[in-house]
């Protein structure tokens, strides 16, 4: 499907689905006034859309809800009860690892390696973009990637988000060291072949070099770096530093980080 000089097909469909702004609509109306072909096409598409909307609805089986509740019951039994309070131990241990990391950092003499972290991640991103960065596991399934990280002995629990709603799809993951500790790397592929890199590692924002910009959102501090066409956004979640690196619109990368960050 494409617009051509004679008949603006894109615009017809966009008009039908109310996706034209007033100027575009005005332009289309001017065309329709003199084009019987497009008027008929628009009417036929409008008629078709109305037909689809009036299609008889399939009523779900009367026992569907009961069946779903039974399936959830079985799932709960399998995991020992979803409503049961979670073990507080899991909430503490990132802090314990943070304390261990802090002790290690003091023992190692402070800011060793850390000033080049944004630069190192920018290099990783460029390798990822040219498929020169090997991913140990390729999968679009967040659960599968989390299981991989769990098996890999990562020193912190890892969550992998499906960013499909932001048009970024999981490609895979790998574990790569940061400051000598295993760090998580998750790769996404977005619209127009754009890449997005997510890194997580034990550390502190204060160990990094001075950022180009500092932002605060929902009580979370963000450090923003630029490296040529790349935007790198750092923030802390407990003892873990999270990083998003993208080559799209810088503000879009920042907003994506805002959306994903969780206050711990």
């Amino acid at each position, binding site marked *: 499907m494409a617009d051509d000089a004679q008949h603006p097909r894109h615009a017809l469909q966009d008009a039908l689905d109310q996706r034209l702004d007033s100027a575009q609509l005005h332009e289309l109306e001017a065309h329709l006034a003199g084009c019987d072909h497009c008027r008929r096409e628009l009417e036929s598409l409008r008629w078709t859309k109305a*037909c689809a909307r*009036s299609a008889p609805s399939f009523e779900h089986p009367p026992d569907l809800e009961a*069946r779903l509740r039974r*399936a959830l019951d079985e799932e709960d039994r399998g995991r020992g009860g979803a409503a049961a309070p979670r073990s507080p131990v899991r909430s503490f241990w990132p802090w314990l690892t943070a304390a261990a990391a802090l002790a290690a950092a003091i023992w190692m003499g402070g800011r060793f390696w850390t000033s080049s972290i944004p630069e190192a991640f920018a290099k990783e991103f460029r390798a990822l973009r040219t498929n020169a960065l090997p991913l140990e596991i390729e999968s679009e399934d967040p659960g599968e990637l989390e299981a991989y990280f769990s098996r890999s002995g990562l020193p912190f629990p890892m969550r992998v988000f499906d960013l*499909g709603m932001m048009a970024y799809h999981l490609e895979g993951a790998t574990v790569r060291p940061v400051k000598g500790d295993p760090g998580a790397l998750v790769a996404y592929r977005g619209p127009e072949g754009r890449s997005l890199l997510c890194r997580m590692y034990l550390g502190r924002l204060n160990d990094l070099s001075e950022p180009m910009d500092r932002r605060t959102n929902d009580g979370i501090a963000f450090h923003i770096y630029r490296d040529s066409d790349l935007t790198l956004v750092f923030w802390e979640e407990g003892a873990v530093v999270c990083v998003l690196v993208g080559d799209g619109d810088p503000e879009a990368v920042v907003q994506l980080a805002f959306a994903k960050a969780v206050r711990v």
Partner: protein
Amino acid sequence: MSVFGDETPSRNLRAEFEETALPIAPALYRTARRLTRRSEDASDAVQETLLRAYRTFDRFQPGTNTRAWLFTILHSILTNDWRRRQRTPEEVPWEVVEERFASALRASAVDAESRLLQKLDASPEIDSALMELPDEFRAAVLLVDVEDFTYEEAAAVLRCPVGTLRSRLHRARKLLFAALRDYARRSGAAEG
């Protein structure tokens, strides 16, 4: 992406999940029923969708578009099922779509369409015409025209660029138009 350690221990996931996701089950079923063509397959797909969602619900963030999230899971399940059954999406060349559409357009008078629409309103013929569409085209129409998803949401559910969604939708509507005109004309002839 985030790390564990921020959960509220007393959070009742089951109750939250039921409140959030179960009301969407009928819409999931409607779409699954039209994509799988079989009631039992549709029920299975909805159940699998909700179980997968439930397993990751502790990561659910308030403000997430729940409908789109669940439809994305549903579509992923159905796509994997199609792959398992080695069903490949049917390719319909653009020229074929245009020819069918143009032919249907030539055969009809636009001013008669509202009358024909009344004839077809909620009729099984609409359903038959929808079922004849290739899977990915049918999914596009169901999401946008029936379930009122935006292009962006539907594209995210189908894991394709917005441009691809728009193209599928356009072709789907043209094929649907050709099929419905045919039904409508036959229906009119039968009465007339």
